[in-house]
Structures are given as C-alpha cells and as structure tokens.
C-alpha cells in the first residue's frame, strides 16, 4: 500500500491563551505584515492552505472585556483577499459564520476570493447560536441551538446552488458576437426552511467551481454535516487512540452520501515544540507552557469552569474547595468547556489534580497547554507520519505559539524531513486548493454532460 501524503495547513492563531504575546519575538496580531509573513512561510513549506478563524464578539469575563489574551483580529475574507496578491499557490481558508450572514453575500465573497486567488479559496462553515454574539447584529441571536446545523446545512446548500447558477460557458465575453453572457446566466430560486430566495447571482464561479468546504464541529451533528458536505474536517483529536476512533467514525459516515473515504480529509489542530535533543525540547515545552498559562490566566480559566469568582485563591495552591455554580456563565464568547460540559469538565479536572497533586496553575497547564508534538525534528517528523499512516488523521493544521515567526522552525527543520520521507510534496504540483488536497473537481449539479 502506498504511503499517505500528509496534508499540512497553518493558521495565524488569535484569541487563544496559547498565543504568547509576551515573547520578545512576538509581532503584531493585526498588521498585514504578520499575516503575509506567516502565509508565505507556510507556502515555503508547500502547505495545502493557510487558515483564519473568526469570533464576532470580544470575549468577556466577569462582565468586562477579557484582557489577558490576544484580542482583536481582522475580517478573515478581506485579509485573505490581500494575501492572494502576495502568495501564488497556497490555499486561503476563511472562517465565516452561517448564523450571522446570508448565503447570497457569503457565496459571492467566497467566489470572489476564488477568482482573486486563481482557485485557492476555502470556506470553514461555522455556526453560532448565542445571543451574546447576536447583540452585534441587526438580526440578533435568534437561533435555537438545535437549529444551528439545519440552518448551516441549508445555508451551504444554498451557496452551492448560487455557485452552480452559472453553468460552464455562461460567461462568454465574446466581442465578435456581442454576447457577454448566455441568457439566464446566474438565475436561481431556493425555497427551504431557512431561506426562500430567488433572482440572479452576481458572480460567476471561480476556477474551482465550488470552493473547498471545511467543517470544524466535533459533535455527532457536526461530523454528519462534514460527511455529507465538507471536503475537510478540523478534528480535535490529537492523540493516537482517540484520533483513530474519530477517524474511523467520520470516514464510515461518508458511504451513505455516495462519497469515498478520500473525499473528506481529517485534519486535527495541533501545536509543536522542537529541541536539538529530546531533553532540550521538553525543557522548551515547559517554558512555553509557563508563558502560556500565567497565574492570572490560570485563575481566569478556573473561574470560567467554576462559574464563580475565585480571585481569593492562590494560583499556585490547590484547587478551590468550593463547588462550581451550575448554569453560571462568567465567561462569554469562550467555548473551552462546550465539548465536555461544565460538570464533566470539573470532575475531570479534580481527578487529574488529585492524582498528580497539581496546583491550579499546574492543572490548567496540563489540560490546556500541552503541545501535540515535542521532540527533535526527527522525532516530530516521525510522530506526525505515524499519526497519518496509522489513520488517526490525514494531516494537521498547525497553530504556532508566536506570531508571526512561530512556524519557521517547523518549515525549516521538520518539513524537509517529511519531504525526504516522501510523505510531503517537494513542490506544488497543482494550481488550485482542490489539487493540493487531492480532491476531485467539484460536482456541478447542472452539468450539461449529465444524460
């Protein structure tokens, strides 16, 4: 069996506490140069794509804007539009919320990015239901949590109908005949539960036809949504055992949608720390963790889990002896505990702390700041490869700890090893992101070849 190729992606990390803004080499989180530097570094490493997250409300803690982590970021599609001018091959992936947008607007903006980049656009479809974020939008936070995936799926399908509303050859620009478009190009009508729209779509599809679709939810609904419609899923499983289980589960869902296992790439979000020796790498990992989880951050994350003020507790002391306050939300716009639930998170944390005799800060470091790959470049390359060859993933999206230089070591020291091993491309072989991901050309529902 041939070895699998590793699909590499990178993001410019933003509002997580794992971004070390105090590092002497840390640069701006908003200046375009930072984005260009990181995207070009990833392109130098022949990565599949560069990715930007989204958050449409500044986080708040105990009723005030959260001030310990990086805050503030640009609108993803706009920055990626600018990056299309300073990169040539790497895919450009934007997170765009399906709750606080409309299909017509998103479809035309993503299609525009696909044109500007020559076929390198991807859209990470995320959902939101919280009224907290909704307060920034004229439409408000109206959505039931139960509806968010039905709306997201219909939103995506509607966008795809809009991309398909221009058939191949509809854009003519034929000066000799005087025909600019074919009659009826871009005409669409969608009638559904969430959207009832019709008219003419303003933007012919870009080189990819349908841009690459990414899905990031790990719930059963999220996995099902990905199996039905996505090309890439960001998973959260960065250990081998749970990675393999999730991989099997997601890939098994594809067949009922008439899709093959290779049609959906599973890419966990990961981090790394290198050293010249294993001991040096471990030492650096400890330094990184100390910088990521300062005493204030440790207490803040504890308060978020406990749902109450814990400012009287010593971050270097034991866990609070008081009980959490159920249903109390002291931190808004932060989803650290969503996957596991509040009670389960607290039980889990107490258990880890008791077993290890950990302080608050040590516990938070243990549960939120453990890099996925720690070791020498050779160790990291081998571990990445094992992860992929043993079907725990198809690749990784790297989130560096420092902006904008945090990807340099990976690209300079690990990527060449992966290339030597024959599991990562030495040069780009295609022009579009679909090419990089090894995806077949987008299905076109109105294809004229259909009998």
């Amino acid at each position, binding site marked *: 069996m041939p070895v699998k190729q590793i699909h590499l992606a990178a993001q410019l990390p933003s509002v997580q506490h794992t971004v070390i803004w105090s590092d002497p080499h840390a640069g701006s989180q*908003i200046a375009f140069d930072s984005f260009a530097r990181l995207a070009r570094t990833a392109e130098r490493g022949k990565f599949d794509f560069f990715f930007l997250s989204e958050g449409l409300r*500044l986080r708040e803690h105990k009723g005030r804007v959260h*001030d310990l982590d990086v805050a503030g970021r640009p609108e993803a599609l706009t920055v990626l539009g600018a990056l299309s001018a300073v990169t040539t091959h790497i895919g450009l992936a934007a997170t765009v919320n399906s709750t606080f947008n409309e299909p017509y607007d998103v479809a035309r903006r993503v299609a525009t990015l696909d044109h*500007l980049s020559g076929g390198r656009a991807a859209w990470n479809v995320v959902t939101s239901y919280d009224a907290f974020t909704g307060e920034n939008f004229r439409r408000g936070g109206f959505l039931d949590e139960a509806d968010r995936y039905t709306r997201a799926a219909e939103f995506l399908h509607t966008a795809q109908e809009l991309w398909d509303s221009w058939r191949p050859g509809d854009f003519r620009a034929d*000066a000799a005949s005087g025909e*600019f478009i074919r*009659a009826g190009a871009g005409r669409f009508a969608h009638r559904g539960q969430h959207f009832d729209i019709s*008219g003419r779509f*303003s933007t012919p599809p870009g080189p990819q036809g349908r841009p690459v679709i990414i899905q990031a939810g790990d719930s059963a609904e999220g996995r099902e949504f990905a199996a039905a419609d996505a090309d890439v899923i960001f998973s959260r499983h960065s250990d081998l055992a749970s990675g393999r289980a999730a991989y099997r589960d997601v890939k098994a869902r594809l067949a009922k949608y008439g899709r093959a296992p290779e049609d959906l790439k599973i890419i966990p979000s990961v981090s790394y720390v290198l050293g010249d020796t294993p001991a040096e790498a471990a030492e650096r990992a400890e330094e990184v963790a100390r910088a990521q989880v300062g005493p204030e951050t440790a207490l803040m994350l504890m308060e978020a889990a406990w749902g109450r003020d814990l400012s009287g507790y010593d971050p270097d002391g034991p866990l609070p002896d008081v009980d959490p306050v159920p249903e109390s939300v002291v931190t808004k716009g932060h989803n650290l505990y969503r996957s596991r639930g509040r009670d389960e998170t607290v039980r889990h944390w107490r258990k880890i702390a008791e077993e290890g005799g950990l302080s608050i800060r040590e516990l938070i470091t243990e549960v939120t700041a453990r890099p996925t790959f720690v070791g020498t470049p050779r160790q990291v390359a081998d571990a990445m490869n094992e992860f992929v060859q043993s079907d725990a993933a198809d690749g990784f999206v790297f989130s560096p700890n420092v902006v904008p230089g945090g990807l340099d070591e990976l690209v300079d020291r690990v990527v060449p090893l992966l290339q030597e091993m024959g599991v990562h491309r030495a040069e780009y072989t295609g022009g579009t992101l679909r090419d990089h991901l090894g995806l077949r050309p987008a299905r076109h529902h109105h294809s004229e070849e259909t009998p």
Partner: protein
Amino acid sequence: MTHLHLAVALDGAGWHPAAWREPDARPAEILTARYWADLVTEAERGLLDFVTFEDTLGLQTSAFHLPDDRTDHVRGRLDAVLLSAALAPLTSHIGLVPTTNVTHTEPFHLAIGIASLDHASLGRAGWRPQITSRAADAAHFGRRTTPQLTDEDVRDSELIAARLRELFDEAHEVVEVVRRLWDSWEDDAEIRDAQTGRYLDRDKVHHIDFVGAHFSVRGPSITPRPPQGQPVVAVLAHAGTPYELAAAGADVVFVTPQSRADAVTRLGEFEQARQRSGRPAGDPIRAFADLVVFLDDEPGRAAGRKHRLDELDGSVFGSDAAVFTGTPGELADLLLEWQGTGLDGFRLRPGTLPHDLAAITGGLVPELQRRGAFRTAYGADTLRGLLGLPRPANRHARAGAAGAVR
C-alpha cells in the same frame, strides 16, 4: 493655485455599455486580479488620489430600478471590498474605495471589512455606502422588501430620494454604527503589559450600545482601530436626502453637475444640507464632481469614438453624471473652470478601459501639472493625508480628556 484632487471610478470595461467590445478591452479578464491590478497601478502612476469600485448585490442591469435579461452588456462582478484588498499589497499610495450595499448587509461586517482593508493597505481605505435602488435585489436575501421605483420616479432624483427615504434614514444609522465601531478601540488599547499579564487595557475598548430606529449593535468591534482612525467615507448624492446623508456622515461627497452653473446650484444645496445637519463648519468635507470622460488627443476624435460605440450598442449613452468628450487639454480647461465653484476635485468615470484611463494618467494629469493644478509626487501615505483630511481623534479619547467618558 490650489491643487485639485482626482479620482477614477472603475467598473467593468468602462462606463459605456459597449466598452467591452473595443479592440483594447479585456472583457474575458474582468474577474481576474491581474486585470484590476493593471488598471490600479496605472492610476497610481498618474498620482491619482483614489480609485472607486462599483458593486451591487445583484447582477448588473441597464435600468436603474429593474433587472433585465440583456446578454450584450458586461454582467458578473467581484465583491468590491475583497477586490480592493487584493490590490492593496500591489500599490503603495493610491486610495482604494469599494462600494458596499448598506440595505441588505450587517453594519458590523461592513465595519470590520473596511477596517481590515485599512489595516491591509496601511491607511488607504475608503468606503462608499450605497442603498438598494432595485427592489428585486431584496429577493436575493428574502428578509425584507424595499420600495419598487417606477419609470416615472427614475426620471427625477428627488422622486427617487423621496420614495427611498426610509432606506436613506437607515443608511444614516449604518454609517453612524460603522464610525462608532471604528472608534470602539482607542489607539493605545493594546498594552501587552507582561507585569500584570494584560494584553489589553479594557478601559480603552468600548461597547457602542447603539440603539436606532432600524437596528441595534452592542460592540465593541473585533478589529482594532484602523490606521486612519476613520477610513474615508464617500457618498454619491443627487438630491436633498442623499445630500443630508453625505452632510451628516461623509468625508467626501460625489455630486453630478451638468454644467458649471449647475455645480454652483448643487454645491449650494449641499451646503444647506450641511447646515441642517448641524455638522461643525470646521469639519471638512471634500466635494468631487463626477464626469464620464471620453478622451483623445486629436480634436473631435473622442466624440466620434463615443458615437461609434453608441451605434454599436444601439442607443445614445447618457449617465447620471455629465458626459465629456474631447481632448485632455479641453478637459483640463473644464475642470479648472468648474473648480472655481468650490469643488475640491473630480471623480472621472472612464468611458472605456484601458483607453480613457491611460488618457487621464498620460494626458490630463501632465496637462494639469503643467498648469500647476495637480501634484507631481505623492505627498502622503494615507488616503486622508492625500485628501488633506486630519486623522480624527478617537471620540472616547476626546471624551476622556474632557473628563467625561461616554
């Protein structure tokens, strides 16, 4: 002599509907970055203040108020904000001013999009908010309806403005919200204080708590204050209601005089709107006149070219702005004559691309420079700087300095 300001309005293959059929046109490329990059770098070679990009949330049509089924005009376009962003790294001085719809979009998204363009261009972003004039576009969103203009309405700008009054009122709120979001971060909000572990000074990031007649927005923005503080807001206005929108919220107003005398009239009407708005007299607004231009060095040739295009299209091209045909020297005469009415500059709409853009940069600009009426080098790196507009203090910083925080 006071230098005049020059901008170019880019759209499709030029403003004449048959422009795309000219031998030098590149109609098959209008959806590529390269096509627009060539045009904007040419405009920057001509030292122009800024370029604008048209946009609509519907396919282009030849009627102001209705969709059409024509297949012989340019159809299909890119999102103007993303297009502007893609051009930012390829240019270094010229302003980039996308048009966006404000009727069917979210003010929050508009604010962070333009702020991000300003960050990506290092302070060269502008924004032209535009209401929906085509009721059919509302069906693309399915969330509301907007007034359907009649054939009679569209013959008179005042009738259009009256019929769309509520959309203009809403646009006032959109501009206000966007401006407040741009100011919701003070310039020095990011502190990176390792001693206390704080990245942000939370006292310098503000909820905007806007509650209007049409919507409410809590804030703050997710995007730090843009380099210009407030990117340049430009409004195209043909009548009293849009004059009020421009007077209340814009830094630049585009007007459409048909003659020198008409420029006097329109600037007078705009000045009245400005006084009604209560905007302080010292708060500058730059007034630009829009002109569609067909330019050739040989006298009479431009008119002949337009005539030939009209015949190809089967109708005589007219526009909301005056249409000029002539030599670059004749246009320079006209601009300087009109400048005396109080206009700060002109937004020229090239009849065909790239021909009329090249005639502006290669003919008109040198002519104006010879007469001492146009810059010979860029003197600023931001769009506000090029337009002679100061970088505004943040409203919260001002309030704080006065001892009262809003």
